């Protein structure tokens, strides 16, 4: 929490200091920042991408916010968060997740503070893919369920490296996008079920997204996210098929069909996802 507070302070002061001689950025092409993923970073729905949130170019900043809901057979996840983009170099994000488990009549709450740094490139213009390095620090408000299931910790930090590229006109004239992310994590189901466990093995997990732009405003895509099974409950990969509608540079809306596999021993969790992101 202290960390989040200091970030907020930093964010506010940055906004104040740059707002006098810079405008909130809109220097990127429509849709190129992507949307917001469930841990608060710019990305698809479940995978953080190499792009930073918002339309700020290298002499601009931007601020954004989003809310998302994922609803599967036995659970529901609600997330809201904020994002700042500083000079297309650093993305700061903070998100709060509420995971509803009706069967236990309980809500599990977690906060995620994120930072992402663009290391190289631009998804449209550079020869090689855009490359970013990110951290997501996650912290459970209450670890009762996590502890019950055998998780070791109530907080953890994911580190990931993401590469992404947009190919103009590549698929029969349509723009094609892909992103690959490699993540080191001990989080069980994003961290909602704690971190680590008896069956844990430290390794890198792969995530990927791909999309085709049917128009300037509409993208159709698929995502995949490999996940650990530290608790031995049969945690599986996540997948989704999404439609993202970039109404303008201020608002985008995403809808997806989810296949989240088994969650806490309940198999075959499929359902719907909707998300709205706005930038100032």
């Amino acid at each position, binding site marked *: 929490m202290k960390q989040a507070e200091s970030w907020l302070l930093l964010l506010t002061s940055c906004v104040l200091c740059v707002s006098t001689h810079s405008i909130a950025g809109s220097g*990127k092409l429509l849709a190129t920042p992507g949307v917001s993923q469930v841990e608060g970073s710019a990305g698809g729905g479940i995978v953080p991408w190499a792009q930073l949130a918002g339309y700020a170019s290298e*002499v601009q900043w931007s601020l954004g916010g989003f809310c998302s809901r994922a609803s599967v057979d036995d659970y529901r996840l609600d997330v809201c968060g904020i994002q700042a983009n500083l000079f*297309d170099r650093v993305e700061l994000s903070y998100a709060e997740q509420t995971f509803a488990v009706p069967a236990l009549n309980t809500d599990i709450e977690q906060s995620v503070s994120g930072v992402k740094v663009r290391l190289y490139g631009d998804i449209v213009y550079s020869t090689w893919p855009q490359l970013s390095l990110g951290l997501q620090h996650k912290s459970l408000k209450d670890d009762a369920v996590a502890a019950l299931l055998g998780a070791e910790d109530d907080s953890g930090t994911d580190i990931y490296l993401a590469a992404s590229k947009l190919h103009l006109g590549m698929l029969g004239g349509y723009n094609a996008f892909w992103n690959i992310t490699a993540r080191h994590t001990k989080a069980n189901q994003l961290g909602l079920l704690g971190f680590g466990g008896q069956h844990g093995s430290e390794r890198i997990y792969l995530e990927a997204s791909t999309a085709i732009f049917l128009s300037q405003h509409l993208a159709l895509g698929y995502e995949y996210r490999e996940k650990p099974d530290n608790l031995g409950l049969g945690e599986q990969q996540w997948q989704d098929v999404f439609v993202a509608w970039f109404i303008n540079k201020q608002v985008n809306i995403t809808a997806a069909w989810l296949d989240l596999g088994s969650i806490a021993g309940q198999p075959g969790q499929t359902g719907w996802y909707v998300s709205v992101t706005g930038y100032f």
Partner: protein
Amino acid sequence: MNNKAHHMTRNLVASLIVLLACVWMGGCQSAARPTLYQKIGGEAGLERLVDLFIQEIGRDKAILPYFAKANVSRFRQGFITHLCDTLDGPCDYQGDSMIQIHTGMQITEADFNRVVELLINAMTEAGIDHTTQNQILARLAPLRGVVIKM
């Protein structure tokens, strides 16, 4: 599965792969395939596009100042010839290099993208379809490096 059916499936799979490869590579190169220049309606289409583009620039507060001292008719002719050349039309641009022209302008990343948006607006107004627009942008995008921050 009998032998004939097996053969047919194999041929079908093979043709599918070739077809997909073609789409991925940006299309099969055959003589009948129109150039981007032809797709936008040849000389008349190109001139109309560039005129619409110039109108877009004229209406844009951020971009117009770059052209404060420019000679519009010279720009129009130079840009038409350059675009015609870039889109495989029957032209050979012999004007100043992109670096020479844009040196000293200090064009920012954001303003470059703004110009791309103005071109997209002009292409849409000219009735150029989405996929052709993307293919045109794909030809111009690699030139960004010799145009911005010079």
